[in-house]
C-alpha cells in the first residue's frame, strides 16, 4: 500500500477528486445517445474515491462518502430495478423507455426518462461495488 502523506499526492488528490467526480456526472448524463453511460461513469467516480483512499486512508474516505459503499450496491440495484416498472403502468412491456420531457423557462428542454434512472442505478451500483472492494482491501492492509 502506498504510504499516505506525500505532498504531491495530497495536493493532486484535493484538486483531482472533485474534477473527476464532475466528469463522471458529465459522462453519466451524456450516456444515452453518445459515448458514456452509467457503467463507465461509475468507474470514473470510483477512480476519484480510490485516489482519495490511497492518499488519506480508509477512515477518511468513508467519512467523505458518507454512505457505506455496501449500501450503495443495494440502492443502485433498486433504482435500476424500479426503472423497469413504469412501463408496466402504461400497459407496455417491462423496460420500455418512458420519456418525460420538461420544458424549462428559456427554451431548454430536459428529457427525464427511465433509461436515465437505469443509468443512475448502474452508476451507483458500480461505484458501490468497486468502493466496497477497495475499502475492504485497504482496511485489511491497515490493520
Amino acid at each position, binding site marked *: 500500500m502506498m504510504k499516505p502523506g506525500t505532498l504531491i499526492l495530497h495536493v493532486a488528490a484535493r484538486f483531482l477528486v472533485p474534477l473527476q467526480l464532475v466528469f463522471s456526472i458529465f459522462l453519466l448524463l451524456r450516456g444515452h445517445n453518445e459515448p458514456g453511460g452509467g457503467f463507465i461513469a461509475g468507474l470514473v467516480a470510483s477512480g476519484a474515491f480510490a485516489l482519495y483512499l490511497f492518499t488519506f486512508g480508509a477512515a477518511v474516505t468513508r467519512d467523505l462518502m458518507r454512505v457505506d459503499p455496501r449500501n450503495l450496491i443495494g440502492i443502485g*440495484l433498486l433504482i435500476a430495478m424500479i426503472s423497469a416498472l413504469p412501463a408496466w403502468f402504461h400497459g*407496455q412491456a417491462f423496460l420500455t423507455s418512458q420519456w418525460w420531457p420538461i420544458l424549462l423557462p428559456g427554451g431548454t428542454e430536459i428529457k427525464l426518462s427511465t433509461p436515465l434512472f437505469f443509468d443512475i442505478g448502474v452508476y451507483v451500483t458500480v461505484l458501490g461495488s468497486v468502493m466496497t472492494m477497495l475499502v475492504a482491501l485497504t482496511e485489511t492492509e491497515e490493520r
Partner: protein
Amino acid sequence: MRAEVALPILVPLLFGALSLIAWRSNLMQRVLGIIGSVTLLICSIWLLMSVLDQGHVVMYMGGWMAPYGITLVADLLSAIMVVLTGMMAVAIAIYSLSSASPSHEKFGYYPLMHLLLAGVAGSFLTGDIFNLYVWFEVMLIASFALLILGGERAQMEGAIKYVTLNLLSSAIFLSAIGLLYGLVGTLNMADIAVKLSQTEHTGLVDVIAVMFMIAFGIKAAAFPLFFWLPASYHTGPVAVSALFAGLLTKVGVYALFRVFTLIFNQSPEFTHQLLLWGAAFTMLTGVLGAAAQFEFRRILSFHIVSQIGYMLLGLALFTPLALVGGVFYIMHHIIVKTNLFLISGIVHRLLGTYDLKQLGGVYKDRPYLSILFLIPALSLAGLPPLSGFFAKFIIIRAGIEAEAWVVTAIALIVGLLTLYSMIKIWAEVFWKPLPENHSTVDSNPSTKPSSLAFLYIPVVLLGACTLFIGLNGQPIYEIAEASAKQLLNPALYIEAVLGETP
C-alpha cells in the same frame, strides 16, 4: 401486457436488491427471503395458470419486437420449471431460517440466493439464445459465491473444479452461439429455428449441435464431463447444496430439452442417438460412482448424475411418450433430490457428521425422520406408489416402445442399483446402532426443537408433494403430456414468438 412472464425474474431481483440494502440486519434479510420466495411461488403459479389457460405467454422486453429485441417466452415446460423453482425457493428459505449461520448471512447469503433464483428463472423464460447465456452466467456467478461461503479448504477445492468446468462449458456455449449467429444471423430462438430449417443442412449444423450438447451437458452433469458435480456439491452449506441439487443441473437439462426440440430437430438420427448413449453412460457411471461412496451428500450427488441420465433418455428417445416421461422425471426429481439433501442436513445437525460409518441409530431416536427419509429415498429408487415409480415407468415404457432394448435394460439396472444405494443409506444411517465411539451432539444448543422445526417444515412439505405426485399422478401426467406435445410441435412456439405461421 401480460406481466406474469417477467415477474418470476423481477421478483427475486427486487428482493435481492432489498436484502442487499438490509445487509446489516439478518432478521430483515430472513423476512425478505421468506416474502420474496413466497411471492416468487405465487407469480410462478400465476404464470402456469395463464399458460395452461391460453397457451404460450410472450413478452417483448422494452417493446422491441422479435426477432430484434429480447423476448421472454413461457411455454408449459418453462412454466412448470418456474413453478418448481418457486417451490424450492420457499423450501430453502424456510430451511435457511435455521440452517444459515450468521457469518454466511453477513456475507450475502440471501442476496446471492435471490440472484441465483433470478438467474434460474431467467434461463427458463428467455426466448433468446444469447440471453440464455447471460442468465447462465448470472446463475453461475451467484452459485460460485454461494458454494464458497464459509471458505473452508474442501469448499475451495470443490469450487475450483466447479468453476473451471463451468467456465469451459460457458466458453463452448458462447462459441457455439457465435457460429450459429454466423450461420443464420439471428439470436432469437424461434427465428433461429425458422432460418435453420430453411438453410441447407450442412455438417456445420451438426457441429454446432454437438457443441451445444457438450456445453449444456457439462452444466447438466452428463457423461463424460460430470465429475465436477460430486466433487463440489457436498462441500457447500447444506441448504445451498440442496438448492443446487434441485435446480442448477436441471437448468442444463432444460436447455437441452429446449434446444434439441426447437432448434436442432432436423437430424435426430445423429444428434439424438448421441444423446441416447450419453444418457445411458450418465445413468450407469453415476450410479456406480454412488455405490462406492460412504458420505451422505456424496452419494446423493452421484445420484443426481445418474438421474440426469433418465431425463436425457426421455429427450433422446424423442417419442411423445418419452418426452412426457422426461418432463415428469424432471418434476419428480427436483422435489425428491432437494428433499434428500435437506434430510441429510437434519441428520448432520443431529449427529454432527455426514460420514455413513459414524452415523447410526436415527430410526431408534427419531422414527418420524426416518419415514420422512424413506419417502423421497424410495421414490428416487422408483418404488410404487411414489412419484419416482411413475417417472421411471413412463420412460422405460417409452424405451420399450421405441425398441431401444439396451438402453432400457441399463435404465432398469440403474433403478435397481439406486435402490441399493438408498438401502445402504437407510441401513447405515437409520437402522444400525450408533457406533459406540460416537459422541452424540444432541446436547448441542442448535438442536433445540424450535430451530429443528424450521428444518422439518420444508422436508414435510416436499415429502407431501412426492406423495401427492405418486398417489394422484393423473393431473401431473396431463400437464407433462401437454408440455411434451408443445415440445414436439415447435411451430406453436415459433408462431407465438414471431406472430405468424412459418
